[in-house]
């Protein structure tokens, strides 16, 4: 619920939507004051508009309420701004009997919603990194429940940070951003310069060595702490090894994998 200004009402709205990373359909827009051209620059006044998100926030099945979706007030000179309200997004959760066509239609709507959100997410990350003076060129790939964003940059080291600290923090922020824009239960993976793939190779090697050591010494091997995603990769790398068992110990963010000989309890 923020107020934005601009030379014309249309420009003010555009400004507001961009700052909040929303599209025209996802915002409730109220004109507070239209622009005044004045006379010879005297009495000139910028337009003021209020932009509010009408996306569902942090609540599972909440969809756009029909009353909200149509609520865009129009005044003076900005009738040309495309205020097309997507009626098809509006759904009634109580509706029990739905046919196949309806399901398909909803799936498509969700897909469109997801694609739009992913685009905004890429803009959001680009904005953050631009302030950090890291120019990136994001490549999106969207699957069923996974968004992968490959951030092409000439400074991959800065973007990744010490042991992937920065890129993992950005990844966490990406999930928060999507939640805020009404999309839950989606995995986001940020990648740059093939970092995730390289890391996977390294982790597989670490896992193998730990397993060898655990079997040779008969003692549990405690690995360094790593984020959940990487721990999972270590566990997976050793699932087929019958001579060791793996578990995690400690509390985030210092949780780490332990590789123990299978016999020891």
């Amino acid at each position, binding site marked *: 619920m923020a107020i934005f200004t601009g030379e014309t009402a249309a420009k003010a709205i555009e400004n507001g939507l961009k700052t909040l990373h929303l599209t025209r359909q996802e915002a409730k827009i109220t004109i507070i004051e239209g622009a005044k051209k004045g006379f010879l620059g005297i009495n000139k006044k910028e337009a003021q508009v209020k932009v509010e998100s009408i996306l569902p926030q942090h609540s599972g099945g909440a969809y756009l309420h029909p009353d909200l979706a149509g609520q865009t007030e129009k005044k003076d000179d900005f009738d040309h701004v495309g205020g097309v309200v997507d009626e098809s997004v509006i759904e009634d959760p109580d509706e029990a009997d739905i046919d196949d066509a309806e399901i398909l239609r909803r799936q498509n709507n969700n897909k469109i919603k997801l694609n739009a959100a992913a685009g905004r997410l890429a803009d959001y990350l680009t904005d953050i990194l631009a*302030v950090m003076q890291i120019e990136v060129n994001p490549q999106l790939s969207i699957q069923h429940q996974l968004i992968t964003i490959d951030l092409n940059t000439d400074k991959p080291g800065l973007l990744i940070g010490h042991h992937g600290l*920065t890129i993992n923090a950005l990844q966490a922020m990406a999930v928060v951003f999507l939640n805020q824009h009404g999309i839950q239960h989606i995995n986001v993976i940020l990648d740059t310069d093939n970092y995730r793939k390289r890391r996977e190779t390294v982790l597989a090697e670490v896992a193998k060595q730990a397993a060898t050591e655990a079997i040779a010494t008969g003692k549990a091997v405690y690995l360094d702490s790593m984020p959940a995603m990487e721990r999972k990769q270590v566990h997976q790398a050793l699932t087929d090894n019958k001579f060791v068992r793996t578990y995690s110990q400690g509390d985030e963010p210092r949780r780490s994998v332990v590789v123990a000989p299978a016999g020891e309890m």
Partner: protein
Amino acid sequence: MNEPDIETLIRVIVQPLVLHPEAVQVTVSETPRLEQYVLTVHPDDVGRIIGRHGHVAAAIRTIVYSAVNETSNKIRLVIDDHRNHETPTQS
């Protein structure tokens, strides 16, 4: 511009995540040892910015701290949780 603008960075990260972007405030106070940035958001948005077990706050701090180069002052990001104003601190 060699020095990344930390205040802008905090705003760019936080503003799209809150319900009241206009209430986001960042104030800077400098001491010889460090620059302290205090982030104030609308009371309804504090939870969003801190996150469960402070996960979101930790991620924001990581990003902000990583933007500082070694030669400049150390920085600290404080998130105002609006608690000190209402209840007097014990001890």
